[in-house]
């Protein structure tokens, strides 16, 4: 599957907006709705911020992001980093029923990715974490 757009930058928060803009424009070109584009932006941000914060644990490293469309049916955001192995799908879901005092701060990002995307796939290939965020393109 050929990437519609691809970029590789240092895994730093400074690059968040540029990366989100690329994914957003890509999704727009595929005719996805404003609502779906917003959901893709959130899921992409959550995945990227996790990489910025945790993947390289103080070391320098890159993140590569590409978007792809498969047979006009699915839109895929593929995010690759060479950091510590991390499968977001292994994170347990936060308890969303707790009140303000008890509610924990963490865990919501990965939860949003899973709830907003139609499918999420994680794989480790060599030294790379590969995360694919997948949404169905409605005819």
């Amino acid at each position, binding site marked *: 599957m050929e990437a519609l757009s691809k970029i590789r930058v240092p895994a730093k928060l400074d690059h968040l907006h540029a990366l989100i803009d690329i994914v957003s424009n890509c999704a727009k070109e595929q005719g996805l709705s404003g609502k779906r584009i917003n959901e893709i932006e959130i899921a992409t941000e*959550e995945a990227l*911020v996790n990489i910025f914060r945790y993947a390289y644990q103080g070391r320098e490293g890159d993140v590569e992001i590409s978007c792809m469309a498969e047979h006009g049916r699915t839109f895929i955001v593929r995010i690759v980093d060479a950091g510590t192995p991390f499968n977001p799908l292994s994170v347990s879901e936060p308890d969303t029923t707790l009140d303000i005092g008890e509610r924990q701060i963490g865990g919501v*990002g990965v939860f*949003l990715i899973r709830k907003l995307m139609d499918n999420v796939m994680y794989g480790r290939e060599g030294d790379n974490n590969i995360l694919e965020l997948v949404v169905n393109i409605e005819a």
Partner: protein
Amino acid sequence: MEINARQEKNATVITVQGRIDAVTAPEFENYLSNLIAKGDRNFIVNLGALEYISSAGLRSILATAKRLKAEQGDIRFSGLQGPVEEVFKISGFYSIFKIFESDASALDNA
């Protein structure tokens, strides 16, 4: 992101426009922190013009709410719509916070 505040009789009404993401969330949290430091305790946050919120934004809201709870303060939300309302629902924020349709109804229940 653009934040504005106005003082009503029994609450500070905050309006946030644009996006609260990992880059802008600290600015949002600091804005509220400064008001709390000045003595404000009751907030209504109008999210009617907010286009986007990620978990970083939710985190800043939760941190502020925890702080206000400890200070016997309160935070309520109004004008939720679109993707922001969706994120509030998915994350459970819709049920842990007091949500009103308008600033007026939030003020009536202050």
